[in-house]
Structure formats: structure tokens, C-alpha cells
């Protein structure tokens, strides 16, 4: 038995006998659906346990689960990025954290915990943003798993990994496994950048976030949500000036709640509660341990199958709805022709001859397959409208009222960029 135990009881890099008894049954022989290229035995185990380097993005509800699963499966070199600190509302599902950890960085606490519980696993945490890291950083990994709740961050990592692909160098293609949950629903998917459908390709599958028109909030409130929006969007800046609204600060939520209650009373609207106030201003998404467990397990299972070739991996989208029975749907999501990230072709955009630049910007913000929050526009030669820096914004602001037709010829190209996204979108403008 090749076990070496050091003084404090943690096993060293050599594993105890039968540690991987369960996983080894899979790695020692192929199954009926295993690809013939699978080389059962020591080589694949050596790759998994000593060579494979995996990046986990997000140490929240999915991240905690992902980390524990990867460690038990035999991944030994795990890197972890998360920019958040632990909040008490995380404790109903983020099982690597305890009440005493509230306020500490998730990445650090999660890494410490997993290394303590699963000896011999190295978890390297980074407490910060994914955008802090460059191509060289991402190039070092064999696989990337994402357990994020932010659409922006997902679009960023997706575009970054697609841009990383160098056709001359197969190593530059980093499979991206992405999971997401909401209540009893969730999805897991495998993205092979440039080969299969990417995150951007499926942007139109996202639910449109609920928004309330300002005129309803200001003049004709009907729902408790309208009163809450009134408190946070209109009253907060009016009464609290430049103070930044912190949706995690109970004093701030309490203030909004009392303002919303007063507003509701004035209009005889029922149903403003503390919980609803918090839900509306923070855009709270229900989250439970069980759904996260299912989705995280499925992400890690794909990582295991890709890293070892011991079985075919998901092609390429698994969707789960657990509200009524267990309903799941596994399908191949197809690449989108005009995907600005992996499609390469310009998107044709027919607009009216009367449209102003401002109207075009509004369309880009709202259109389901584009959803760019603060787009900057340029023709290949010169800027049309830039959100920043301030000097350029001021210089291009007069263009907002101009007709697009005055600036772009029929069939002309407009390049759309945004500071939050590492890619640009090319539009071919035609007039109708």
C-alpha cells in the first residue's frame, strides 16, 4: 500500500490504496459507448490527477458544488476565481461556508475548505474579477467550468475563450462548461469555442428581465413593485443625493421599504413587504441547494468525461425543469449564423430612413439577440457615438439626434462595441 501519512494526518501526494476505487472502475475499461480513442489505465489517470489544470469561475451556489465534485473525482490542480464575499443568504446552499465566514472572500474560504477536506488537492484562489486576467492566464488551463449568475461575466469569458482559439494550435481550444440555475430550473452545457454553439449564440434564450416604464412608476402605480421602483429609482436619488444604493445594506433596504409602504398607502396598493422590496431592488433569484447540486454535478461530469475520454460528453445542452415532476431536455443547440462572437459574419440591420442614432442605440439595447447595455457606435472610418471617455462622449453626443442616414450610407457598416464585452459587432445598415 503506497500510503504516506504526514504528522497532521493529511495524505501527501501519493494517494492511499483504493482512494479512487469508484472512479477507477470507469478509467480501467471502456464502456459500450466509449470512443475507441480512450486509452484505459494509468495514462488517463496520470493525466487527470497530475497534469490536468482546470479553472472554476464562481465560488457561489454552483461553484461550491463544482469544487467539491472535481476534488473527489481526482482533479488535483484547480484554480478558482470569484469577486464576491460571503453573505448570510448564501448559507442555505453554499455549503463550504459557515456563519463565521460571513464577509470573507468566497474564493479564499472555498479553496481552504476543499483543500482541508480532500487531501492532496491544490486549489488556487483568486479573489477578483475574471476581467483582471489576460489571455496568458486563460491559456494555461485544459478546461474551464463556469458557475455564474451574471450574464455579462458569461459573455465576457465566452468571447475571451473564442478569441483565444488559434487554428494552428489545437491546445488553444479550451472547452467551456457552463451551468446556471433559477429555483427548480437549471441548465448545463458544453461549449467548444468556434466549433459548437457559444454562449452568445443562445442569447435569445434568456428570459427578458421585467422592467417597469418610468411613467407607470411615476404616475399610475398599480402593483407593489411599482411603489418599490418609485422608492429606489426616483426617491432615492432625490432624497439621498449621490449616495450609492447598497442593496446589501439593511438600512438602505429599510429606507426603501418605508418609502414604498408610504407610496402604497397613498394609492391604496396592497402587498409591499420587506422581502418583496429586497427582491425587486436586488433582482433576487430564488436558489436552492438541490438544483445547484444537479447542475454542478452535470458540469463536473462533463469535465470528467472530456478530460478522460472515458465516455461521450454532452452534445451540447441539458435543460432541467423540476417544478412539475422531473422534466429534462437534452439537445444540440445550433450555432447562430450571425453570432458576433463565433459567427464572423456581419448582421444585417434594416431600419427606417427616419431613424436617429439614439433610436438605433435603443434597439441594440433591447433586441433579444444583441442586448448590449451601453453600445458605442462607429463607422469603419470615424466615431458615431462613444459612451466614453467623457471628452469623446461629449464630442459625439450631437450625433444622437441625427438621422443614421446622414452618417451611414445604405449598405454601410457600423461597428458596435461596449466596454463590458471583449468583442465587437458588425452591422450592415440597410434602409427600408
Amino acid at each position, binding site marked *: 500500500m503506497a*500510503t504516506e501519512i504526514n504528522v497532521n494526518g493529511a495524505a501527501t501526494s501519493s494517494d492511499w490504496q483504493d482512494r479512487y476505487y469508484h472512479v477507477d472502475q470507469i478509467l480501467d475499461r471502456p464502456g*459500450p459507448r466509449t470512443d475507441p480513442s480512450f486509452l484505459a489505465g494509468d495514462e488517463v489517470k496520470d493525466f487527470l490527477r497530475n497534469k490536468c489544470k482546470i479553472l472554476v469561475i464562481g465560488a457561489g451556489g454552483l461553484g461550491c458544488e463544482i469544487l467539491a465534485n472535481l476534488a473527489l473525482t481526482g482533479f488535483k490542480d484547480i484554480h478558482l476565481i470569484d469577486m464576491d464575499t460571503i453573505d448570510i443568504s448564501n*448559507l*442555505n446552499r453554499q455549503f463550504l461556508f459557515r456563519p463565521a465566514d460571513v464577509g470573507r472572500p468566497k474564493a479564499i474560504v472555498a479553496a481552504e475548505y476543499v483543500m482541508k477536506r480532500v487531501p492532496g488537492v491544490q486549489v488556487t484562489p483568486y479573489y477578483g474579477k475574471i476581467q483582471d486576467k489576460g489571455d496568458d492566464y486563460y491559456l494555461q488551463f485544459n478546461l474551464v467550468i463556469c458557475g455564474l449568475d451574471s450574464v455579462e461575466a458569461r459573455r465576457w469569458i465566452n468571447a475571451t475563450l473564442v478569441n483565444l482559439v488559434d487554428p494552428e494550435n489545437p491546445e488553444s481550444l479550451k472547452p467551456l462548461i457552463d451551468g446556471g440555475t433559477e429555483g427548480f430550473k437549471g441548465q448545463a452545457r458544453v461549449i467548444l469555442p468556434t466549433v459548437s454553439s457559444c454562449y452568445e449564440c443562445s442569447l435569445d434564450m434568456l428570459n427578458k428581465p421585467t422592467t417597469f416604464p418610468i411613467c407607470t412608476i411615476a404616475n399610475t402605480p398599480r402593483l407593489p413593485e411599482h411603489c418599490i421602483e418609485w422608492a429606489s429609482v426616483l426617491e432615492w436619488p432625490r432624497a439621498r443625493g449621490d449616495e450609492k444604493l447598497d442593496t446589501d445594506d439593511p438600512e438602505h433596504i429599510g429606507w426603501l421599504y418605508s418609502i414604498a409602504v408610504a407610496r402604497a*398607502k397613498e394609492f391604496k396598493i396592497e402587498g409591499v413587504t420587506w422581502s418583496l422590496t429586497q427582491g425587486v431592488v436586488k433582482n433576487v433569484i430564488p436558489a436552492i441547494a438541490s438544483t445547484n447540486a*444537479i447542475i454542478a454535478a452535470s458540469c463536473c461530469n462533463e469535465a470528467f468525461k472530456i478530460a478522460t475520454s472515458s465516455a461521450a460528453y454532452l452534445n451540447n445542452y441539458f435543460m432541467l425543469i423540476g417544478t412539475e415532476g422531473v422534466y429534462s431536455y437534452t439537445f444540440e443547440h445550433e450555432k447562430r449564423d450571425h453570432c458576433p462572437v463565433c459567427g464572423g459574419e456581419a448582421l444585417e440591420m434594416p431600419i427606417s430612413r427616419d431613424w436617429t442614432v439614439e433610436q438605433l442605440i435603443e434597439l441594440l439595447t433591447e433586441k433579444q439577440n444583441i442586448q448590449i447595455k451601453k453600445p458605442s457606435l462607429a463607422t469603419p472610418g470615424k466615431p458615431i457615438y462613444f459612451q466614453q471617455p467623457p471628452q469623446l462622449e461629449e464630442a459625439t453626443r450631437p450625433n444622437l439626434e441625427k438621422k443614421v442616414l446622414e452618417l451611414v450610407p445604405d449598405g454601410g457598416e457600423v461597428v458596435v462595441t461596449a466596454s463590458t464585452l471583449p468583442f465587437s459587432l458588425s452591422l450592415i445598415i440597410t434602409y427600408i
Partner: protein
Amino acid sequence: MSSQDSQDIETATTAIESAPDTKTRRYDRQLRLWAATGQSALESSRVLLISGSATSTSILKNLVLPGIGHFTILDHAKVSHSDAGNNFFLEGYNSIGKSRAEEAVQLLGELNDSVEGRADTRTLGSILKAHPEWITSFTIVIAHNLDHTLLNELSALLWKDAKYPPLVVVRSAGFLADFYIQFHEHTIIESHSEISPSLRIDKPFPALREHALSLEFDKMDSTEHGHIPYVVILVRALEDWKKSHGGSLPKSYEERQQFKKGVLALKVKGDEENFDEAETQAYRCWTETKVPSEITALFSDPALFIEAMDSNQSPFFHLLAALKEYTEQCDTHTLPLTSTLPDMKSDTHNYIHLQRLYKTRAEEERQVFKSYLRVPVDDAMVDSFVKNAHALVVLRGKPWGTFDEDKAALGESLSTMPKETCIHLALSALSLLQAGDTSVSPSAESIRAKIQSIVGQYTELPDEADDAIGEIARAPFSELPNTAAFLGGMVAQEVIKMITKQYVPVRGYCVIDLIETCTGTIGA
């Protein structure tokens, strides 16, 4: 408005809550799914897990985190080298040789201080013989990869009495798994259906009808005209239509198009969105409000027979009996009205007024409904029942294992869902081949022969059988960490639905294939 009404509004809109306590903050993200009622059901539940395997602890983790009241792990095994490698709720190498139940209870307990955990190191066999009442005292019992003979004894015990706890049978090997919930009867009021109840535009209650008829559209100023809620527009337009069409509704496609055009023609300005909304919602005028067929079907449930009602019947069936009588007696033959009005283009005054009409009427109908109740039922439950009357669910289950004894059903299932059925049968075959000796490593041939004996010699196995058999033969003892975690989530989710009696649990055998990453349900 009466003074009673204004008082209600006063109390409904001015009660100020203080900031939520620690517990509410901790559970915030789940309370948004199952609310305080679901949470309190969880907190009073007692869960028994048979075995401290990686799958069992994964299931428990997802029940301890949301806050069940109590769990017991029944397991007499000591931690093996392989357990220490694949179970996150053991201290790795340091746990080897110690009690698996005790080690796991310790680490699971750290997840949530308010949950009580116990380790029991007796054998199931001895308890089944000497203290079956100990097993039946739990809220729900979960068994993972339990020996075939013991499982049969356990499921037979728990099936003996309808009041005994449900049993969740979980089986896995390698990338394949299935699970089944054995229960007699499961009733659900809060099914969280995504279907909303009828607004009864086609059968307006008197106050709504009067209100719609009292409005003089043509005398309104443009602001007011642009804020009439679509419900009112439709009720009015439908009344006018009936007047000019001998009392009948728009029937043919042409008539319906004509009705819609008529609605749009009421606009005084092009941008009146409330009329656009009325046009898109016009289908509500000819979608007759009646008792949904799923609910009518419940009215012939055997539990409603007089003899059954005389006995100690649950409040659910008393409420259902009252509902049946209500729908028979009321002149619209509909379910009681609910007061939930969706948002619509309108202003505060018009919307709130309409909301109050619905609320008042709903309260009146609720009182009538209550008068049909033969036994006292808690008010909150009555409210919830009426609010969810359009989406009530009654499930009736079968004992574990009956599917595998029904050759016709298996044959049918093999042709309609071959992949899932083969996985299920391969797991059944493995369990049979290992009965009495779980160290048996069966060959693909012996698994195939066993499956053939389950389905009968005249049923031909589909091609998918090779995939399932091959995977089971490849890894008959393998409890993969990812499969365990996946099952941990799936089973915990269904257990939560069973305990809270909210949402709808899975019926039949839920089969999981983590090679193709898909799930399916058979044998319902």
C-alpha cells in the same frame, strides 16, 4: 366605499415589518419558492437515510442545508478506503475504520446548527424484525443501493398502512441511476402551476358587469379613455355584442375577427394601448370558464365516497367535497373566483377599483364555499385551497417493484422508452444478481439473462439494452462522485416536494443516464 373597506385597506397597507431576522435572511432564497408554510413543514420533518454512502450524504446535504428538522443515518458499516475517497462528508483518510454513520452525521451537522442529526449503527435486518415502528415513525425513508431482500421487506412494511412514510428507493452504478418514490396518496394544494385562474370575462359577476355597463366610454376625456382596464373593455364589448347577436357569443372565426375589430374601433386615439391589450386578450371572451377537466376528474375520487368521508379523512378531501358541491350549486358552475388580478394597462384608480371588485366577489364566493364544508378547516388552508382550486393535484402511487412484475407494462415501456427502460432493467438485474452477496461482479451475459427473465422470454430486448448492460458490467460497484452529487440533488428535490406538499413530485421511475446526460420517467 364602506368604512369596513377603508379599514381593511388601512391595515393592509400600513403594517410595517421590521428587518428580517437571521433565520429569514439565511433562508431567503428558498422562502421565495416555498414560503413559510413549506419551511415549517421541512422543519418538522424527520428523515431516515439507509446507508451512509456518498449518494446518501449528498442527498442529506441538500436536505440539511434548507433546514429539515431531523435526520438519522442508519448504517453499521465502517469507513473503507474507497468510502474515504469518494464521500465529501468523511474526513478523508482519517475516517477510515470509524463508523460511517457517525463520521457523516458529524460533518453533515456542521452545515446547519438548527438540524438534529443522529447516527444509528444497528442493522436494518434487526430493526425490521424487532422494531418496525421505529422505521414507520419517520416522515420519509430513503434507501440507497439497498440489498434486494431487505429492500423488499422494507417496502412491504412501509406499504402496509397508508399513513406510513413514503419510501424513496435510489439505485446507481457508474454513470447510470434511477429512483422511485413509493407512496399511497399525495395531495397537493400549492402545485405552483404556471396556469393562471380564469378572470371570468365570459361570465362576469354582477358587480363587474354593472361596472362595465355603467361606464360611458364616449363621454370620457382621452386620458381616462386610455386607462380603462382591458377586462372592463372586454366585458362591455361582449355585453354589447350579445345584445346585437341574440345573446350569443362570437362563434365563428369571422365573428371573432369582427369582434376584435370592434374592440379596436373603440379607440379614440391610435396609441391607446389598453385597447390593443383588449384585442390580444379577446380570446378570453370565447374561452368558456368552466371547471378544468383535471379538477372534474378529482370529483369522482374514491376518497369522496360517503363511507370514506365518514372516517377520519384528511382536510384536503373535505375541501374537495365542498368544492364539488360548490361547483354543482353555483349558477355559473365554475370554481370560486380568485382575487389575483394580473397587471394591465390602466391607471391607479381604475385598476385598484377593479381589483376591489374582484376581491369583494372572491370573498363572497369563498364564504359560500365555506358553507359547504362539513368539518372545520383552518382559514389559511381554506384560502390557499380556493386560490389554487384550478391546479389541485391528487397522486396515487403503487408499491415498489410492481412495475418489474408487470411483463405487459415492461414490454410496452421497452417499445416507447427503450433507453430508459433498459437502464432501469439493468439496475434491477444487478440488484437481483447481488441479492444476498453484494460483492458479486456480474458479467454482461448474466445481466442480459436476468433482464430477459424479468421481461419474459418472448420479449425481444431493443438495441439500447447493450449500452445499459455494458455500462453496468463495466462498473457494477462504482459510485461516481458526480453521479452521487447528481442523484443527491434530484432525490432531495423530490423529497422536499413530498414533505412540503408543494410543487409536483415525479411519478414512476426517474431514470438517469449521465453519459448522454439525460433523464426520463417510466412506469408511472
